[in-house]
């Protein structure tokens, strides 16, 4: 298996990359780390005329702190996020979840922007970004704007990114005080694609009741699923085990996972409920440990 022929373009800065996209976007694929694109090329599932390698675009590298969020450049590698002390302190859900992305050999090349743009519904980063209510910063030659995960992820491997646009960065909101987080996943082998996964953030008020619940379920639907009724159900309640158990199974009927040799539809649904209960339990526990009265 070898990639098909293509013309290789390697811009040195963002302006040049956006110029190339404006000119060739319709026939081009952006290559960041290549960890999803190169298999697609090798298997000839994708045969772009142009590959625009954004590896040298300096503006797309790096991790920056803003007042309420950590902004990660699209070309920043998984391993850099995994090892970032800033992210561990301000956005620990990301540190916990990113260890589930592929294996070491993948994380040393794969990028944050690449994972989001690939939009695999069982990938970890789209699920985490959705739970955190983060934003995707999109740039084109004309414009720069942000999209919510709901606006960005359309279906399996499909996003609202236009051919002349690229992901400049991703905004991951910081964890608030009195909040706890958890990431749970079951894969056949650590590093393989998730069967299902859950990311959750729970914020407690001064009486220990749920003030805010942010949940995303991955691998079950075509895009990361936000169980809104479950979140609303939790708000204002004392999060004891009975309540968390009830919350975890409230919306399993809304999930539509595809069954395959590794797990039937019913099994994946059931598993999501188990993982959600675990995630809620851990998030509440962590929120309590961090509560400042």
């Amino acid at each position, binding site marked *: *298996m*070898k*990639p*098909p*022929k*293509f*013309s*290789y373009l*390697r811009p040195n800065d963002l302006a040049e990359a956006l110029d190339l996209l404006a000119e060739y976007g319709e026939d081009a694929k952006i*290559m960041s780390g*290549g*960890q999803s694109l*190169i*298999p697609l*090329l*090798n*298997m000839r599932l994708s045969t772009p005329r142009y*590959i625009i*390698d954004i*590896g040298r675009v300096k503006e797309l590298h790096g991790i920056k702190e803003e007042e309420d969020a950590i902004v990660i450049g699209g070309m920043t590698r998984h*391993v850099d996020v995994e090892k970032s002390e800033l992210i561990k302190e301000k956005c620990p859900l990301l540190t916990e979840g990113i260890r589930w992305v*592929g*294996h*070491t*050999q*993948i994380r*040393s*090349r794969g990028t944050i922007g690449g994972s989001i743009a690939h939009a695999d519904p069982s990938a970890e980063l789209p699920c985490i970004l959705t739970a955190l209510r983060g934003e995707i910063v999109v740039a084109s030659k004309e414009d720069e704007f942000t999209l919510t995960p709901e606006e960005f992820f359309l279906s399996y491997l499909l996003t609202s990114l236009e051919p002349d646009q690229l992901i400049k960065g991703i905004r991951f909101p910081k964890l608030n005080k009195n909040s706890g987080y958890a990431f749970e996943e079951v894969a056949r*082998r*650590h*590093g393989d694609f998730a069967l299902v996964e859950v990311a959750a953030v729970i914020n407690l008020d001064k009486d220990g009741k749920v003030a805010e619940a942010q949940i995303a379920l991955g691998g079950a639907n075509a895009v990361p699923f936000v169980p809104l009724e479950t979140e609303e159900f939790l708000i204002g309640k004392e999060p004891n085990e009975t309540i968390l158990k009830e919350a975890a199974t409230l919306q399993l009927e809304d999930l539509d996972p595809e069954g395959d040799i590794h797990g039937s539809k019913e099994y994946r649904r059931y598993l999501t409920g188990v993982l959600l209960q675990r995630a809620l339990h851990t998030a509440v526990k962590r929120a309590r440990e961090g509560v400042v009265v």
Partner: protein
Amino acid sequence: MKETLVKVTINGKEVAKEIESRWLLSDFLRDNLGLTGTHVGCEHGVCGACTVLINGEPVRSCLMLAVQADGCQVETVESLARADGSFNHIQQAFANNHALQCGFCTPGFLMSLKSFMENNPTLPTDEEIREAISGNLCRCTGYSNIIKAVKEAYALNC
């Protein structure tokens, strides 16, 4: 199709070649430079047999274009043996513990472990060793002897 100049340092030696941009790093190493120690298994990033080090970090060379390695330091399994041709500590531990049978996957294991041992200088737990080799598949020996070999490699490296 236009060719692209690639300048890389491979096992300490500088190499500059004009190549077709679609060449995978794995094929560039094997077919263009004759470094056939890097094995190509699945060619889509699952088996880990083609693992090499790029600037000291483990990477699947079948998931990287050779042109992307421009300006990088590349280390392959050929760099492991000592100057006199004898095995290094990881290779010796693999030989001592029957950590390979057909040997196809071995170059990938060795390169993943080289990086892992450099980043984790003290003896890891079995669980950590399992995690470290989880990106490499072995289809004949099984993993128990590989884990034994890793522990011995730590002892030999003291």
